[in-house]
């Protein structure tokens, strides 16, 4: 729980993986990289992500005006599942193709 916002939001999720960023990289650098990959992963589901750059919150939105604020990756995946009306399956071929594209 965050003592400032009283929010119960687990941060860790296996999808955060092992960060390949250089050890001396500025902290925001990994964050931008993660947001960029998230954008590529969410695009095939018709969703967008925007990052205010501070706090742990990201905004996940569809293209019809619905949006959710999500803190941490577990919340991101849950919000994406609700907004796209289908659970995000890590083995979905469409998703894997998007990941391959983003990893290039």
């Amino acid at each position, binding site marked *: 729980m965050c003592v400032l916002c009283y929010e119960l939001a687990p941060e860790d999720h296996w999808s955060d993986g092992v960060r390949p960023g250089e050890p001396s990289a500025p902290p925001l650098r990994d964050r931008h990289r993660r947001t*960029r990959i998230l954008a590529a992963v969410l695009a095939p589901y018709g969703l967008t992500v925007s990052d205010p750059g501070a706090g742990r919150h990201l905004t996940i939105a569809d*293209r*019809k*005006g*619905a*949006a959710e604020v999500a803190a941490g990756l577990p919340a991101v995946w849950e919000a994406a599942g609700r907004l796209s009306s289908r659970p995000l399956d890590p083995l979905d071929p469409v998703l894997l193709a998007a990941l391959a594209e983003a990893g290039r």
Partner: protein
Amino acid sequence: MAKDIKCVFGVDIDAVGGWLGSYGGEDSPSDIQRGMFSGEIGTPRVLKLFQKFDLPATWFIPGHSIETFPDSVKMIVDAGHEIGAHGYSHENPIAMTPKQEEDVLAYCVELIDKVSGRAPRGYVPPWWEMSNSTPSLLQKYGFTYDHGQGLHDFMPFYARVGDSWTKIDYAQEASAWMKPLERGEVIDLVEIGANWYMDDLPPMMFIKKAPNSAGWVNPRDVEAWWKDQFDWVYREQDYGVYAFTIHPDVAGRPQVLLMLERMIEYINGHEGVSWVTMEAAADDFRTRYAYPGPTGSPFMPGS
């Protein structure tokens, strides 16, 4: 030079289409009912306001609203107001394929022609977003003006399309993104500037699915912003177009109707103001500043 401030009411009946296309209400019976309120209750109230002050207005009506609220649309046509296009279900133009966008526009032009006896001349892109295909589609379907670009506020201008800019990509060298914006081409389409600060919806419509939705701004505060903008335009400009963008979803509510009455009375207390349709404002601008060609300035000299 005599003052000539043209005042315009642009009214978008977003209604159910707005909840389907833009406000995240597709699964909410409550939101859909608010859309029904806009078309069936809010629209006649706003019409009555215009009748009270004998004002012309321009109604940008999504195809969904034309087909769902034929009686309200007939009242608008019978009152002699102008009708413009505004998508079918308030789709985001940049989310559609070019074919989807053309199918939507062509059908809406047909609907407006059918209910009003005249094809629309004016367009408001839902979300105020023009796609890459929007300008050529508008020209193909005979539109002469648009109310969607934000390059200027209270002075009309010609639309410019194809501006390009470089996003920051922190994975690249800085030199990859240190590039200025490149201006595109000016096209023969008059713009009555889109201006969020003249729009009633973001401050005064509660949207459940938008995390930053307010919707609880006191109309008296909105009235103060609008009066300040009018006062500045009236002091600084001899000519200008002061255009409201309102929605019966919001403007059809008592607290906003009363505020609009006060606004109209305030504006009417000034010399040299007139109320016109958006088409009249756009046509008048063409006589002041003819289309300058693709590389000309979108702005009239001195503006």
